[in-house]
């Protein structure tokens, strides 16, 4: 295993500040795990509800460390040829023809040359490994792939190397920061989990969420922002199929600013409801439970009640 990077941060607080500069407000556990990932050189497996900023964390890490981000979006049926590498058949064919036309050289060596790096098409994983500059590798929504794909990742994640039968082993020149996200739609294999640090990101507490909203929509005033997260918390407290996420809070803030609203009353709420609730059954429930509470104009009590 390669040792920690020379320029790796010294304390979790340092990471937190760097992430904040990259406009990502990390809480303590996020900062700590991001720090450990860089120190120990381990991949991070991030899970949590949709839209709490799992993918954003990887992007922020890339901005904070000044590394390029390479992203592999997973889907059902993703395989080696699309994620790791593929031989460029067409180029190989052309190579054969060109060689045949140029001279009648030794055929065996010509065949060997067909499997040279120049005929290799790099896909995201190999690209991340072979990059000269250290990168951030994001493997997004790994739960969408099959278990076989996970097994293929193991070599890459534990030793940061890839074996290509025709070429041999390719070791990482630099140590990438690997972020793997999952929406928890299926259980990942133990083998994969064992190689990763685990991070669960949940909805942030109201103060932090208000900060995040203000960061992404500077046009919103403080009172409206805290009112907004209060209402969002009320909505999340209901039994919804798809509770509003942080990105929806931000969208809503933008909508409110566009509408020129300075307070959230029943009217504005009903008007802009569809920005935060995206499911028909949920819409009815929210309209019934939350909207009247706003109409009375009194400040919402604690969301638990």
């Amino acid at each position, binding site marked *: 295993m390669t040792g920690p990077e020379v320029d790796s941060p010294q304390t979790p607080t340092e990471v937190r500040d760097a992430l904040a500069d990259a406009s990502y407000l990390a809480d303590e556990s996020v900062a700590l795990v991001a720090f450990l990932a860089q*120190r120990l050189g381990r991949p991070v497996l991030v*899970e949590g509800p949709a839209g709490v900023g799992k993918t954003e964390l990887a992007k922020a890490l890339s901005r904070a460390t000044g590394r390029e981000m390479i992203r592999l979006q997973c889907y059902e049926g993703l395989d080696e040829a699309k994620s790791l590498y593929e031989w460029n058949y067409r180029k190989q064919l052309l190579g054969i023809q060109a060689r045949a036309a140029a001279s009648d050289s030794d055929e065996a060596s010509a065949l060997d040359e067909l499997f040279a790096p120049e005929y290799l098409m790099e896909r995201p994983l190999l690209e991340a490994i072979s990059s000269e500059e250290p990168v951030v590798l994001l493997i997004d929504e790994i739960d969408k792939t099959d278990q076989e794909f996970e097994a293929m990742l193991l070599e890459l994640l534990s030793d940061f190397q890839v074996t290509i039968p025709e070429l041999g082993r390719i070791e990482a020149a630099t140590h990438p920061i690997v972020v793997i996200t999952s929406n928890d739609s299926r259980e990942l294999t133990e083998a994969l989990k*064992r190689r990763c*640090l685990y991070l669960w990101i949940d909805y942030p507490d109201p103060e932090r969420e208000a900060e995040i909203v203000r960061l992404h929509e500077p046009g919103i005033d403080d009172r409206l922002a805290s009112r907004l997260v209060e209402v969002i918390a009320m909505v999340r407290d209901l*039994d*919804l199929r798809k509770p509003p996420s942080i990105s929806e809070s931000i969208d809503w803030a933008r909508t409110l600013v566009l509408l020129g609203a300075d307070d959230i009353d029943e009217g504005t709420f009903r008007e802009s409801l569809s920005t935060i609730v995206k499911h028909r059954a949920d819409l009815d429930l929210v309209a019934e439970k939350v909207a009247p509470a706003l109409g009375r104009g009194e400040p919402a009590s604690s969301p638990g009640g």
Partner: protein
Amino acid sequence: MTTDPDRGPARIADRLIEFCGALRAEGLAVGTSEVLDASNALESIGWEDEDGFREAVAATVAKSRGDREVFDLVFDRFFFREAEAEALRRESEVESPDGTGDDRLADLSVEGLAEAVAEAIDSGDAGRMNDLARLSIEVFARDGERSGVVGVDLQRIRRGLGIAPGGDGAGPDPEGRREFERQLRRELERRQIGQLGKLPPARPLRDLNRTLPTRGAADLAQVQRAIFRMKRRLATVGHDPRRGGKGRSIDFRRTARASLETGGVPLDLRYRPRRPRKPEIYVLCDVSSSVSSASTFFLSVVHALHDSFRRLRSFVFIERISEVTDLFQSERDFASVSERITAQGGVADVSGYTDYGRVWREFLEDVSSDLGPRSTVIVLGDARTNGRPPGSDSFRAVADRAKRTLWLNPEPAAYWNYGDSAMAAYAPFCDGVFECWTTDQLEDFVDLLARTGGGTPSVHPAAMAPPRPRY
């Protein structure tokens, strides 16, 4: 750092290994590599602060949300006990209950205390809650209300302060209340340890901490995940993916297209994907009062199944059986489904007691012509016949026609065949009998379903014994 032999890294490493042992005892898969990771992680952070320490160990050791919950419970218990054991070992003073502030306590009324506690709970101030927890223990000890049993004392103090749960949202914030109770319990345990001079035996976490969800949509998501997995597995049941080649037909169009890459030579044969045959599933769900706590859960399982399978027919039964397939298909919202089933599902229910014998007969009449070698019958019920004949002949006829018959029982296996439970009468005809009262078990069921795809019978041993006197 290593000057004091009691505090050096070696000692921490030992504690860490013991801690991981405790986690394993609770069923977490903690490998040696994870222990190594944890100690590496601790080396690179300053672990003076408890949260950092906890998060670092959690990130390396607990690899799912469920694991994290168990981790937190074990962490609190383990390091609390660890600290207490250390205190005992050094014979240092554990704060005595009859300490300094007696004169101050004398004029403190229970009412005043209750008010202060309510205030602290509302403000969510953990430090203040801890102080007040100690104070209340002392006040109640002064009044002679002290049994020495942690649970009993906790109840008493809770009642005295008027923070017992059960108010309809009128009481204090539930989150804060739970925090205060945690503090109380901790303090009471600390005192008990101080008095006895030794640690009470460590008990495993109770299963209750991880029992079935019964709340509706939020937990439904959890069930839905388990069902999603179940769906994937059911879809491939009976297939052997390795048995390639034979009987597969070539997709000529795609092969021809692929051959263009190799100059028209079809090097790379493309096959038509094999379409797995869709299973037909019949779900029978008991909704009688004896399983009322579990039936919400089971209905949500059925609801989730409807999302995943087209060819699914569902039935609910108490005394008689009725088909609710249409109801589930037309109604997307779980709450209204369960409402409509109770209101007008047509569950002919005179006595409110399950009559299994009749249910099988009626089921057989309804669907016997459709049951075939592709059918899977899943029964969700407790097999409590209320002393009525179990009708195992009819059940056998059902099981014979269907390819597979599976039974999920919401009672722990230990209760099967006691009283009016007739599990043993049905078990021999089932391809699988499972206890299912936690989500973990539901997942185990799904696992088993995948492994026994061919239909090998796997009957829970408890189902067969003891031989039960027939009605």
